[in-house]
Protein backbone atom coordinates (compact mmCIF):
# COMPACT_ATOMS: atom_id res chain seq x y z
CA UNK A 1 0.00 0.00 0.00
CA UNK A 2 0.93 3.64 -0.50
CA UNK A 3 2.82 5.21 2.42
CA UNK A 4 0.88 8.00 4.12
CA UNK A 5 2.83 10.84 5.73
CA UNK A 6 1.63 12.66 8.83
CA UNK A 7 3.08 14.48 11.84
CA UNK A 8 2.45 13.94 15.53
CA UNK A 9 3.51 16.01 18.51
CA UNK A 10 5.21 14.52 21.54
CA UNK A 11 2.17 15.36 23.69
CA UNK A 12 -0.18 13.68 21.25
CA UNK A 13 2.13 10.66 21.21
CA UNK A 14 2.01 10.58 24.99
CA UNK A 15 -1.78 10.34 24.74
CA UNK A 16 -1.55 7.63 22.12
CA UNK A 17 0.34 5.60 24.70
CA UNK A 18 -2.62 5.78 27.07
CA UNK A 19 -4.97 4.85 24.25
CA UNK A 20 -2.87 1.76 23.57
CA UNK A 21 -2.93 0.77 27.22
CA UNK A 22 -6.65 1.45 27.36
CA UNK A 23 -7.08 -0.88 24.38
CA UNK A 24 -5.28 -3.59 26.37
CA UNK A 25 -2.04 -3.38 24.42
CA UNK A 26 1.34 -3.75 26.16
CA UNK A 27 4.09 -1.39 25.10
CA UNK A 28 7.67 -2.55 24.68
CA UNK A 29 10.15 0.31 24.27
CA UNK A 30 13.77 1.31 24.97
CA UNK A 31 14.21 2.23 28.61
CA UNK A 32 17.25 3.45 30.45
CA UNK A 33 18.29 1.70 33.68
CA UNK A 34 21.67 2.80 34.95
CA UNK A 35 24.04 2.82 32.00
CA UNK A 36 21.94 0.31 30.18
CA UNK A 37 19.36 1.15 27.50
CA UNK A 38 17.27 -1.87 26.65
CA UNK A 39 13.75 -2.90 25.72
CA UNK A 40 11.32 -3.04 28.62
CA UNK A 41 7.59 -2.85 29.24
CA UNK A 42 6.56 0.78 29.67
CA UNK A 43 3.30 2.66 30.27
CA UNK A 44 4.19 6.19 29.16
CA UNK A 45 6.35 7.99 26.67
CA UNK A 46 8.35 9.69 29.40
CA UNK A 47 9.80 6.30 30.35
CA UNK A 48 11.07 5.78 26.84
CA UNK A 49 14.67 6.57 25.91
CA UNK A 50 15.45 7.42 22.30
CA UNK A 51 18.89 9.05 22.61
CA UNK A 52 20.82 5.82 22.18
CA UNK A 53 22.13 4.63 18.86
CA UNK A 54 20.89 1.15 19.73
CA UNK A 55 19.50 -0.88 22.62
CA UNK A 56 21.58 -3.77 23.95
CA UNK A 57 19.03 -6.40 23.02
CA UNK A 58 16.91 -6.47 19.91
CA UNK A 59 13.12 -6.26 19.98
CA UNK A 60 12.91 -9.88 18.86
CA UNK A 61 12.16 -10.70 22.48
CA UNK A 62 8.64 -9.31 21.86
CA UNK A 63 7.71 -12.40 19.85
CA UNK A 64 10.68 -14.70 20.43
CA UNK A 65 11.36 -14.28 24.16
CA UNK A 66 14.42 -15.84 25.81
CA UNK A 67 12.16 -18.40 27.50
CA UNK A 68 8.60 -19.25 26.51
CA UNK A 69 6.18 -22.02 27.40
CA UNK A 70 5.00 -24.14 24.47
CA UNK A 71 2.67 -26.42 26.41
CA UNK A 72 2.16 -27.93 29.84
CA UNK A 73 1.45 -31.53 30.79
CA UNK A 74 -0.01 -33.64 33.58
CA UNK A 75 0.71 -37.30 34.25
CA UNK A 76 -1.62 -39.65 36.12
CA UNK A 77 0.01 -43.05 36.59
CA UNK A 78 0.58 -44.01 32.97
CA UNK A 79 -1.48 -41.42 31.05
CA UNK A 80 -0.20 -38.03 30.00
CA UNK A 81 -2.51 -35.09 29.22
CA UNK A 82 -1.16 -32.09 27.35
CA UNK A 83 -2.54 -28.54 27.46
CA UNK A 84 -1.49 -26.52 24.41
CA UNK A 85 -0.60 -22.88 24.91
CA UNK A 86 -3.92 -20.93 24.45
CA UNK A 87 -2.95 -18.60 21.60
CA UNK A 88 -6.03 -16.37 22.01
CA UNK A 89 -4.76 -15.47 25.48
CA UNK A 90 -1.69 -13.74 24.02
CA UNK A 91 -1.74 -9.95 24.43
CA UNK A 92 -1.55 -7.33 21.74
CA UNK A 93 1.85 -5.68 21.75
CA UNK A 94 3.12 -2.36 20.47
CA UNK A 95 6.88 -2.25 20.01
CA UNK A 96 7.76 1.41 20.15
CA UNK A 97 11.03 3.14 19.39
CA UNK A 98 12.69 0.29 17.56
CA UNK A 99 15.09 1.26 14.78
CA UNK A 100 14.47 0.67 11.07
CA UNK A 101 17.07 -2.12 11.14
CA UNK A 102 15.17 -3.85 13.94
CA UNK A 103 11.92 -3.60 12.04
CA UNK A 104 13.55 -5.08 8.96
CA UNK A 105 14.95 -7.90 11.12
CA UNK A 106 11.46 -9.27 11.86
CA UNK A 107 11.24 -10.29 8.21
CA UNK A 108 14.33 -12.52 8.59
CA UNK A 109 13.05 -13.91 11.89
CA UNK A 110 9.61 -14.64 10.42
CA UNK A 111 11.23 -16.22 7.37
CA UNK A 112 12.79 -18.85 9.65
CA UNK A 113 9.81 -19.47 11.91
CA UNK A 114 7.32 -19.72 9.06
CA UNK A 115 9.64 -21.59 6.68
CA UNK A 116 8.49 -25.15 5.94
CA UNK A 117 6.06 -25.83 8.83
CA UNK A 118 5.01 -22.48 10.34
CA UNK A 119 5.43 -22.05 14.10
CA UNK A 120 1.97 -21.37 15.51
CA UNK A 121 3.03 -19.59 18.66
CA UNK A 122 5.45 -17.34 16.79
CA UNK A 123 2.91 -16.52 14.09
CA UNK A 124 0.24 -15.69 16.66
CA UNK A 125 2.60 -13.39 18.54
CA UNK A 126 3.65 -11.78 15.24
CA UNK A 127 0.01 -11.19 14.31
CA UNK A 128 -0.63 -9.37 17.59
CA UNK A 129 2.39 -7.08 17.26
CA UNK A 130 2.48 -3.54 15.88
CA UNK A 131 5.83 -1.91 15.14
CA UNK A 132 6.10 1.84 15.68
CA UNK A 133 9.71 2.60 14.80
CA UNK A 134 11.80 5.70 15.25
CA UNK A 135 14.41 6.38 12.58
CA UNK A 136 18.03 7.00 13.43
CA UNK A 137 19.36 10.50 14.03
CA UNK A 138 22.74 9.08 15.05
CA UNK A 139 24.88 6.12 14.10
CA UNK A 140 28.17 4.72 15.40
CA UNK A 141 31.16 2.85 13.99
CA UNK A 142 29.32 -0.46 14.43
CA UNK A 143 26.33 0.50 12.27
CA UNK A 144 26.26 -0.82 8.70
CA UNK A 145 22.56 -0.97 7.75
CA UNK A 146 23.27 0.72 4.43
CA UNK A 147 25.67 -2.08 3.48
CA UNK A 148 22.95 -4.73 3.87
CA UNK A 149 20.09 -2.98 2.10
CA UNK A 150 18.68 -0.92 4.95
CA UNK A 151 19.01 2.65 6.05
CA UNK A 152 18.57 5.02 9.01
CA UNK A 153 15.14 5.98 7.71
CA UNK A 154 14.15 2.78 5.93
CA UNK A 155 10.49 1.89 6.28
CA UNK A 156 10.65 -1.85 5.55
CA UNK A 157 9.08 -3.87 8.32
CA UNK A 158 7.66 -1.01 10.37
CA UNK A 159 3.92 -0.38 10.58
CA UNK A 160 4.58 3.23 11.46
CA UNK A 161 7.97 4.93 11.27
CA UNK A 162 8.49 8.15 13.24
CA UNK A 163 11.30 10.62 12.62
CA UNK A 164 12.13 13.30 15.15
CA UNK A 165 11.97 16.52 13.10
CA UNK A 166 12.63 18.79 16.05
CA UNK A 167 10.41 21.25 17.95
CA UNK A 168 8.67 18.33 19.69
CA UNK A 169 7.31 16.92 16.48
CA UNK A 170 7.66 13.58 14.74
CA UNK A 171 7.14 12.92 11.07
CA UNK A 172 5.02 9.76 10.91
CA UNK A 173 5.06 7.42 7.94
CA UNK A 174 2.06 5.10 7.93
CA UNK A 175 3.36 2.03 6.14
CA UNK A 176 1.01 -0.87 6.70
CA UNK A 177 -2.61 -1.77 7.32
CA UNK A 178 -1.76 -2.26 11.01
CA UNK A 179 -0.27 1.24 10.89
CA UNK A 180 -3.38 2.71 9.40
CA UNK A 181 -5.59 1.04 12.03
CA UNK A 182 -3.31 2.40 14.75
CA UNK A 183 -3.75 5.91 13.34
CA UNK A 184 -7.51 5.49 13.10
CA UNK A 185 -7.68 4.25 16.70
CA UNK A 186 -5.76 7.36 17.72
CA UNK A 187 -8.37 9.62 16.16
CA UNK A 188 -6.92 13.06 15.44
CA UNK A 189 -3.59 12.58 17.18
CA UNK A 190 -1.84 12.32 13.81
CA UNK A 191 -1.97 15.54 11.75
CA UNK A 192 -1.37 16.14 8.04
CA UNK A 193 2.36 16.58 7.29
CA UNK A 194 2.17 19.68 5.11
CA UNK A 195 5.37 19.14 3.12
CA UNK A 196 7.61 18.29 6.07
CA UNK A 197 10.58 16.01 5.20
CA UNK A 198 12.75 13.58 7.24
CA UNK A 199 15.95 13.19 5.20
CA UNK A 200 17.78 16.12 6.82
CA UNK A 201 17.11 14.61 10.23
CA UNK A 202 18.59 11.21 9.50
CA UNK A 203 21.99 9.86 10.42
CA UNK A 204 24.54 9.33 7.64
CA UNK A 205 25.68 5.75 7.32
CA UNK A 206 28.20 5.25 4.51
CA UNK A 207 28.06 1.79 2.90
CA UNK A 208 31.31 0.00 3.76
CA UNK A 209 31.33 -3.16 1.66
CA UNK A 210 29.69 -4.54 -1.42
CA UNK A 211 27.04 -7.03 -0.32
CA UNK A 212 27.05 -8.61 -3.76
CA UNK A 213 30.60 -9.84 -3.14
CA UNK A 214 29.90 -11.49 0.24
CA UNK A 215 27.90 -14.56 -0.72
CA UNK A 216 30.23 -15.70 -3.53
CA UNK A 217 33.28 -14.89 -1.37
CA UNK A 218 31.91 -17.04 1.46
CA UNK A 219 31.42 -19.95 -0.90
CA UNK A 220 35.01 -19.62 -2.08
CA UNK A 221 36.45 -19.17 1.41
CA UNK A 222 34.53 -22.06 2.97
CA UNK A 223 37.50 -24.41 3.04
CA UNK A 224 40.11 -21.77 3.84
CA UNK A 225 40.69 -22.92 7.43
CA UNK A 226 43.55 -20.46 7.97
CA UNK A 227 41.30 -17.55 7.03
CA UNK A 228 38.64 -18.51 9.56
CA UNK A 229 41.19 -19.35 12.24
CA UNK A 230 42.71 -15.88 11.84
CA UNK A 231 39.26 -14.21 11.92
CA UNK A 232 38.01 -16.06 14.98
CA UNK A 233 41.14 -16.49 17.06
CA UNK A 234 40.11 -14.19 19.90
CA UNK A 235 36.46 -15.34 19.86
CA UNK A 236 35.62 -16.89 23.25
CA UNK A 237 32.61 -18.80 22.02
CA UNK A 238 29.99 -17.20 24.23
CA UNK A 239 26.44 -16.53 23.06
CA UNK A 240 26.33 -12.77 23.48
CA UNK A 241 26.30 -12.01 19.74
CA UNK A 242 23.50 -14.47 19.04
CA UNK A 243 21.38 -13.39 21.98
CA UNK A 244 21.42 -9.70 21.13
CA UNK A 245 21.02 -10.38 17.42
CA UNK A 246 17.61 -9.39 16.00
CA UNK A 247 17.62 -12.26 13.51
CA UNK A 248 19.29 -15.15 15.33
CA UNK A 249 16.57 -17.74 15.75
CA UNK A 250 18.30 -20.82 17.13
CA UNK A 251 16.49 -22.31 20.10
CA UNK A 252 16.60 -25.26 22.48
CA UNK A 253 13.64 -27.23 23.79
CA UNK A 254 13.59 -28.07 27.49
CA UNK A 255 11.06 -30.02 29.48
CA UNK A 256 10.80 -28.91 33.07
CA UNK A 257 8.74 -31.11 35.31
CA UNK A 258 8.58 -32.59 38.75
CA UNK A 259 6.08 -34.87 40.40
CA UNK A 260 3.20 -35.34 37.99
CA UNK A 261 3.22 -32.05 36.07
CA UNK A 262 5.54 -30.02 33.95
CA UNK A 263 5.94 -27.80 30.93
CA UNK A 264 7.84 -27.71 27.69
CA UNK A 265 9.89 -24.58 27.21
CA UNK A 266 11.61 -22.99 24.24
CA UNK A 267 14.73 -20.98 25.01
CA UNK A 268 17.48 -19.28 23.07
CA UNK A 269 20.52 -21.17 21.92
CA UNK A 270 23.59 -20.20 19.95
CA UNK A 271 25.67 -21.82 17.22
CA UNK A 272 28.71 -20.25 18.89
CA UNK A 273 28.57 -22.68 21.81
CA UNK A 274 31.06 -25.52 21.57
CA UNK A 275 28.41 -28.11 22.41
CA UNK A 276 25.79 -26.77 19.99
CA UNK A 277 26.50 -29.54 17.49
CA UNK A 278 27.90 -32.17 19.86
CA UNK A 279 26.57 -35.64 19.07
CA UNK A 280 25.73 -38.27 21.66
CA UNK A 281 28.56 -40.35 20.24
CA UNK A 282 31.01 -37.68 21.36
CA UNK A 283 31.63 -36.62 17.77
CA UNK A 284 31.36 -32.91 17.09
CA UNK A 285 31.10 -31.80 13.46
CA UNK A 286 32.21 -28.29 14.45
CA UNK A 287 34.92 -28.87 17.05
CA UNK A 288 36.70 -25.57 16.43
CA UNK A 289 35.59 -22.04 17.23
CA UNK A 290 36.71 -21.00 13.74
CA UNK A 291 34.17 -23.41 12.26
CA UNK A 292 31.48 -22.08 14.55
CA UNK A 293 32.30 -18.50 13.62
CA UNK A 294 32.22 -19.43 9.95
CA UNK A 295 28.86 -21.10 10.48
CA UNK A 296 27.45 -17.91 11.99
CA UNK A 297 28.42 -15.83 8.96
CA UNK A 298 27.55 -18.54 6.43
CA UNK A 299 24.10 -18.87 7.94
CA UNK A 300 23.34 -15.19 7.74
CA UNK A 301 24.94 -14.38 4.41
CA UNK A 302 24.74 -17.63 2.43
CA UNK A 303 22.27 -20.18 3.77
CA UNK A 304 19.40 -17.80 4.57
CA UNK A 305 19.55 -15.95 1.25
CA UNK A 306 19.59 -19.36 -0.43
CA UNK A 307 16.79 -21.04 1.57
CA UNK A 308 14.63 -18.23 2.94
CA UNK A 309 15.48 -15.75 0.21
CA UNK A 310 16.27 -13.16 2.84
CA UNK A 311 19.49 -11.88 4.38
CA UNK A 312 20.19 -12.89 7.97
CA UNK A 313 21.74 -9.57 8.96
CA UNK A 314 20.37 -6.03 9.10
CA UNK A 315 23.55 -4.22 10.11
CA UNK A 316 22.39 -3.12 13.57
CA UNK A 317 25.89 -3.77 14.93
CA UNK A 318 24.63 -5.17 18.24
CA UNK A 319 26.84 -8.28 18.06
CA UNK A 320 29.94 -6.09 17.74
CA UNK A 321 28.90 -3.85 20.63
CA UNK A 322 28.04 -6.78 22.86
CA UNK A 323 31.17 -8.82 22.10
CA UNK A 324 33.47 -9.10 25.15
CA UNK A 325 36.51 -9.35 22.88
CA UNK A 326 35.62 -6.79 20.23
CA UNK A 327 34.81 -9.19 17.39
CA UNK A 328 33.65 -6.41 15.06
CA UNK A 329 31.52 -8.15 12.43
CA UNK A 330 31.80 -5.20 10.08
CA UNK A 331 35.58 -5.62 9.89
CA UNK A 332 35.19 -9.31 9.24
CA UNK A 333 32.63 -8.75 6.50
CA UNK A 334 34.91 -6.18 4.87
CA UNK A 335 37.75 -8.68 4.98
CA UNK A 336 35.50 -11.29 3.34
CA UNK A 337 34.31 -8.89 0.66
CA UNK A 338 37.89 -7.87 -0.09
CA UNK A 339 39.42 -11.36 0.19
CA UNK A 340 41.40 -12.35 -2.92
CA UNK A 341 39.77 -15.45 -4.37
Amino acid at each position, binding site marked *: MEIEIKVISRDALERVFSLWLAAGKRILAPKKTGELVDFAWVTQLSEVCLDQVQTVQSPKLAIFPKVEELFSYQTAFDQVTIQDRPLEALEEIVVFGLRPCDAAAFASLAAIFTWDSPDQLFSARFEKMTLVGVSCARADEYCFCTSVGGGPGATTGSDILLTDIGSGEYLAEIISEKGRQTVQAAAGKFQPAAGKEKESHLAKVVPSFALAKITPALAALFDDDAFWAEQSRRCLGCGACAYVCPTCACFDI*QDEGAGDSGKRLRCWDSCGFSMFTLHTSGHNPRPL*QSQRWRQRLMHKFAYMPERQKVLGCVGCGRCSRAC*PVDMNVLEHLRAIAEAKI
Partner: protein
Amino acid sequence: MEALKNKAREWLDSRMVQLVIGYSQGSGDSVRAVFVHDPGQVETLLFDSRCRQNLAVYLLKPEVKKMGKAALVANLTTLRAVLQLAAENQIGEHDVLTLTVNPAGELLVLSTLEAIETYVAISAPDLSVEEKAELEKYEKLGMEERWQFWQEQFSRCLKCYACRAACPLCYCSRCTVECNQPQWIPVPAHDLGNLEWNVMRAMHLAGRCVNCGDCSRACPVNIPLYLLNQKLISDVFRNFNARSGMAAKAENTLSTFKPNDKEDFIR
Protein backbone atom coordinates in the same frame (compact mmCIF):
# COMPACT_ATOMS: atom_id res chain seq x y z
CA MET B 1 55.93 0.70 24.08
CA GLU B 2 59.07 0.04 22.02
CA ALA B 3 60.64 -2.26 24.60
CA LEU B 4 57.62 -4.53 24.38
CA LYS B 5 57.71 -4.65 20.59
CA ASN B 6 61.45 -5.30 20.55
CA LYS B 7 61.24 -8.12 23.06
CA ALA B 8 58.35 -9.67 21.11
CA ARG B 9 60.33 -9.38 17.86
CA GLU B 10 63.44 -10.83 19.50
CA TRP B 11 61.57 -13.84 20.84
CA LEU B 12 59.71 -14.51 17.61
CA ASP B 13 62.88 -14.12 15.54
CA SER B 14 64.80 -16.47 17.79
CA ARG B 15 61.86 -18.94 17.70
CA MET B 16 61.97 -18.85 21.48
CA VAL B 17 58.20 -18.49 21.21
CA GLN B 18 55.91 -19.11 18.26
CA LEU B 19 53.30 -16.67 19.46
CA VAL B 20 52.88 -13.47 21.42
CA ILE B 21 49.46 -12.94 22.94
CA GLY B 22 49.04 -9.23 23.57
CA TYR B 23 46.86 -6.20 23.11
CA SER B 24 46.34 -4.05 20.03
CA GLN B 25 44.06 -1.21 18.95
CA GLY B 26 40.42 -2.26 18.62
CA SER B 27 37.20 -0.61 17.42
CA GLY B 28 36.80 3.00 18.47
CA ASP B 29 39.11 3.66 21.38
CA SER B 30 38.91 0.12 22.71
CA VAL B 31 41.75 -2.40 22.76
CA ARG B 32 41.54 -6.07 21.84
CA ALA B 33 43.56 -9.24 22.08
CA VAL B 34 46.01 -9.89 19.28
CA PHE B 35 47.95 -13.05 18.44
CA VAL B 36 51.26 -12.12 16.92
CA HIS B 37 52.90 -15.11 15.22
CA ASP B 38 55.06 -13.35 12.68
CA PRO B 39 57.64 -10.73 13.63
CA GLY B 40 56.14 -8.40 11.03
CA GLN B 41 53.06 -7.93 13.19
CA VAL B 42 54.74 -6.80 16.41
CA GLU B 43 54.07 -3.15 15.57
CA THR B 44 50.40 -3.71 16.43
CA LEU B 45 51.30 -4.48 20.07
CA LEU B 46 50.51 -1.91 22.72
CA PHE B 47 50.14 -1.73 26.47
CA ASP B 48 48.34 0.93 28.48
CA SER B 49 45.66 1.40 31.12
CA ARG B 50 42.98 0.19 28.70
CA CYS B 51 44.57 -3.26 28.60
CA ARG B 52 42.40 -4.90 31.24
CA GLN B 53 41.27 -8.12 29.56
CA ASN B 54 42.75 -11.18 31.26
CA LEU B 55 44.58 -12.74 28.35
CA ALA B 56 45.32 -15.87 30.37
CA VAL B 57 41.89 -16.99 29.16
CA TYR B 58 43.51 -17.80 25.80
CA LEU B 59 46.26 -20.05 27.19
CA LEU B 60 43.97 -23.09 27.40
CA LYS B 61 42.17 -22.55 24.08
CA PRO B 62 43.03 -25.51 21.85
CA GLU B 63 43.19 -23.25 18.78
CA VAL B 64 45.81 -21.11 20.52
CA LYS B 65 47.71 -24.01 22.11
CA LYS B 66 48.13 -25.47 18.62
CA MET B 67 50.16 -22.40 17.59
CA GLY B 68 53.06 -23.39 19.83
CA LYS B 69 54.77 -21.84 22.82
CA ALA B 70 53.30 -18.47 23.72
CA ALA B 71 54.55 -15.32 25.34
CA LEU B 72 51.81 -13.53 27.24
CA VAL B 73 51.56 -9.76 27.67
CA ALA B 74 50.13 -9.73 31.15
CA ASN B 75 48.67 -7.25 33.56
CA LEU B 76 48.70 -8.04 37.28
CA THR B 77 45.53 -10.12 37.40
CA THR B 78 46.62 -12.00 34.30
CA LEU B 79 49.84 -12.94 36.09
CA ARG B 80 47.82 -14.14 39.06
CA ALA B 81 45.56 -16.14 36.76
CA VAL B 82 48.68 -17.79 35.32
CA LEU B 83 49.79 -18.81 38.82
CA GLN B 84 46.32 -20.08 39.70
CA LEU B 85 46.21 -22.10 36.47
CA ALA B 86 49.58 -23.57 37.37
CA ALA B 87 48.34 -24.39 40.87
CA GLU B 88 45.44 -26.22 39.21
CA ASN B 89 47.70 -28.25 36.93
CA GLN B 90 46.48 -26.47 33.82
CA ILE B 91 49.83 -25.05 32.73
CA GLY B 92 53.36 -26.15 33.43
CA GLU B 93 56.56 -24.29 34.19
CA HIS B 94 57.62 -24.17 30.55
CA ASP B 95 54.29 -23.55 28.86
CA VAL B 96 54.38 -19.78 28.92
CA LEU B 97 56.65 -16.73 29.11
CA THR B 98 55.14 -13.57 30.52
CA LEU B 99 55.87 -9.93 29.82
CA THR B 100 54.50 -7.22 32.03
CA VAL B 101 54.85 -3.51 32.54
CA ASN B 102 55.36 -2.37 36.10
CA PRO B 103 53.73 0.76 37.54
CA ALA B 104 56.89 2.68 36.67
CA GLY B 105 56.25 1.82 33.02
CA GLU B 106 59.24 -0.51 32.65
CA LEU B 107 58.95 -3.76 30.73
CA LEU B 108 59.61 -6.81 32.90
CA VAL B 109 60.33 -10.29 31.59
CA LEU B 110 58.94 -12.90 33.99
CA SER B 111 60.17 -16.13 32.48
CA THR B 112 59.46 -18.49 35.36
CA LEU B 113 56.49 -19.09 37.61
CA GLU B 114 58.77 -18.27 40.51
CA ALA B 115 59.56 -14.88 38.97
CA ILE B 116 55.82 -14.24 38.65
CA GLU B 117 55.32 -15.23 42.29
CA THR B 118 57.94 -12.75 43.43
CA TYR B 119 56.40 -10.01 41.32
CA VAL B 120 52.79 -10.53 42.45
CA ALA B 121 53.88 -11.00 46.07
CA ILE B 122 54.30 -7.24 46.41
CA SER B 123 50.94 -6.49 44.82
CA ALA B 124 48.26 -4.67 46.77
CA PRO B 125 45.52 -6.57 48.64
CA ASP B 126 42.83 -8.09 46.46
CA LEU B 127 40.19 -5.50 47.17
CA SER B 128 40.88 -1.79 46.85
CA VAL B 129 39.45 0.64 49.40
CA GLU B 130 36.73 1.59 46.92
CA GLU B 131 35.88 -2.05 46.21
CA LYS B 132 35.67 -2.79 49.95
CA ALA B 133 33.43 0.24 50.47
CA GLU B 134 31.08 -0.79 47.65
CA LEU B 135 30.94 -4.36 48.94
CA GLU B 136 30.08 -3.15 52.43
CA LYS B 137 27.39 -0.92 50.99
CA TYR B 138 25.59 -4.00 49.68
CA GLU B 139 26.38 -6.12 52.73
CA LYS B 140 24.70 -3.47 54.87
CA LEU B 141 21.44 -3.58 52.90
CA GLY B 142 18.53 -5.47 54.44
CA MET B 143 18.07 -9.05 53.32
CA GLU B 144 14.93 -8.24 51.36
CA GLU B 145 16.67 -5.33 49.64
CA ARG B 146 19.58 -7.57 48.69
CA TRP B 147 17.13 -10.13 47.31
CA GLN B 148 15.31 -7.49 45.27
CA PHE B 149 18.59 -6.04 44.01
CA TRP B 150 19.93 -9.37 42.79
CA GLN B 151 16.61 -10.51 41.39
CA GLU B 152 16.50 -7.37 39.29
CA GLN B 153 20.06 -7.98 38.12
CA PHE B 154 19.60 -11.66 37.37
CA SER B 155 16.28 -11.12 35.61
CA ARG B 156 18.36 -9.53 32.84
CA CYS B 157 20.66 -12.54 32.52
CA LEU B 158 20.47 -14.07 29.05
CA LYS B 159 22.53 -17.16 29.88
CA CYS B 160 24.87 -16.23 27.06
CA TYR B 161 27.73 -17.44 29.29
CA ALA B 162 29.96 -14.55 28.27
CA CYS B 163 30.98 -14.36 31.94
CA ARG B 164 32.09 -17.98 31.78
CA ALA B 165 33.81 -17.65 28.42
CA ALA B 166 35.74 -14.56 29.51
CA CYS B 167 36.93 -16.11 32.78
CA PRO B 168 40.45 -17.52 32.68
CA LEU B 169 39.52 -19.95 35.45
CA CYS B 170 36.31 -21.28 33.87
CA TYR B 171 38.18 -23.83 31.79
CA CYS B 172 36.13 -26.98 32.35
CA SER B 173 35.60 -28.91 29.14
CA ARG B 174 32.11 -29.67 30.39
CA CYS B 175 30.55 -27.08 32.67
CA THR B 176 28.01 -28.22 35.24
CA VAL B 177 25.33 -26.31 33.30
CA GLU B 178 25.95 -28.75 30.48
CA CYS B 179 25.24 -31.80 32.64
CA ASN B 180 21.73 -33.01 32.00
CA GLN B 181 21.77 -36.26 33.95
CA PRO B 182 20.85 -34.83 36.30
CA GLN B 183 20.04 -31.33 35.04
CA TRP B 184 21.83 -29.41 37.78
CA ILE B 185 21.09 -25.98 36.36
CA PRO B 186 17.95 -25.32 34.32
CA VAL B 187 18.95 -24.45 30.76
CA PRO B 188 16.37 -21.69 30.27
CA ALA B 189 17.27 -18.17 31.35
CA HIS B 190 14.24 -17.88 33.63
CA ASP B 191 14.59 -16.45 37.14
CA LEU B 192 15.31 -19.77 38.83
CA GLY B 193 17.78 -20.85 36.17
CA ASN B 194 19.55 -17.52 36.35
CA LEU B 195 19.83 -17.55 40.13
CA GLU B 196 21.16 -21.09 40.25
CA TRP B 197 23.62 -20.43 37.45
CA ASN B 198 24.97 -17.35 39.18
CA VAL B 199 25.24 -19.00 42.61
CA MET B 200 27.10 -21.88 41.05
CA ARG B 201 29.41 -19.71 38.99
CA ALA B 202 30.38 -17.73 42.06
CA MET B 203 30.86 -20.82 44.25
CA HIS B 204 32.98 -22.53 41.63
CA LEU B 205 35.29 -19.54 41.67
CA ALA B 206 35.50 -19.39 45.46
CA GLY B 207 39.13 -19.44 46.50
CA ARG B 208 40.16 -19.29 42.83
CA CYS B 209 39.00 -15.94 41.44
CA VAL B 210 41.79 -13.41 40.90
CA ASN B 211 39.39 -10.45 40.68
CA CYS B 212 40.20 -9.46 37.10
CA GLY B 213 36.60 -8.35 36.57
CA ASP B 214 36.32 -9.79 33.07
CA CYS B 215 33.05 -11.57 33.89
CA SER B 216 31.38 -8.24 34.59
CA ARG B 217 32.98 -6.52 31.62
CA ALA B 218 31.88 -9.37 29.37
CA CYS B 219 28.27 -9.30 30.54
CA PRO B 220 26.21 -7.67 27.77
CA VAL B 221 23.50 -6.67 30.25
CA ASN B 222 25.82 -5.21 32.92
CA ILE B 223 25.17 -7.62 35.79
CA PRO B 224 27.70 -6.65 38.51
CA LEU B 225 29.08 -10.17 38.81
CA TYR B 226 32.30 -8.83 40.31
CA LEU B 227 30.38 -8.15 43.53
CA LEU B 228 29.74 -11.86 44.00
CA ASN B 229 33.35 -12.76 43.36
CA GLN B 230 34.61 -10.00 45.63
CA LYS B 231 32.24 -11.11 48.39
CA LEU B 232 33.83 -14.55 48.25
CA ILE B 233 37.34 -13.17 47.91
CA SER B 234 36.86 -11.17 51.08
CA ASP B 235 35.24 -14.10 52.91
CA VAL B 236 38.04 -16.43 51.87
CA PHE B 237 40.62 -13.96 53.10
CA ARG B 238 38.76 -13.16 56.31
CA ASN B 239 38.03 -16.77 57.24
CA PHE B 240 40.98 -18.66 55.85
CA ASN B 241 43.57 -15.97 55.30
CA ALA B 242 44.00 -17.23 51.75
CA ARG B 243 44.53 -15.42 48.43
CA SER B 244 44.30 -17.16 45.09
CA GLY B 245 46.75 -16.69 42.27
CA MET B 246 49.71 -15.92 44.50
CA ALA B 247 51.59 -19.20 44.23
CA ALA B 248 52.11 -21.83 41.54
CA LYS B 249 51.94 -24.64 44.08
CA ALA B 250 49.09 -23.70 46.36
CA GLU B 251 46.33 -25.94 47.63
CA ASN B 252 42.81 -24.76 47.07
CA THR B 253 40.81 -23.18 49.88
CA LEU B 254 37.94 -25.61 49.46
CA SER B 255 40.03 -28.74 49.12
CA THR B 256 41.82 -28.05 52.39
CA PHE B 257 40.71 -27.13 55.91
CA LYS B 258 41.89 -26.16 59.34
CA PRO B 259 40.53 -28.02 62.38
CA ASN B 260 39.80 -24.64 63.94
CA ASP B 261 37.85 -23.11 61.05
CA LYS B 262 35.06 -21.01 62.55
CA GLU B 263 31.73 -22.70 63.13
CA ASP B 264 29.73 -20.15 65.09
CA PHE B 265 26.81 -20.86 62.75
CA ILE B 266 26.72 -24.59 63.52
CA ARG B 267 24.52 -25.85 66.37
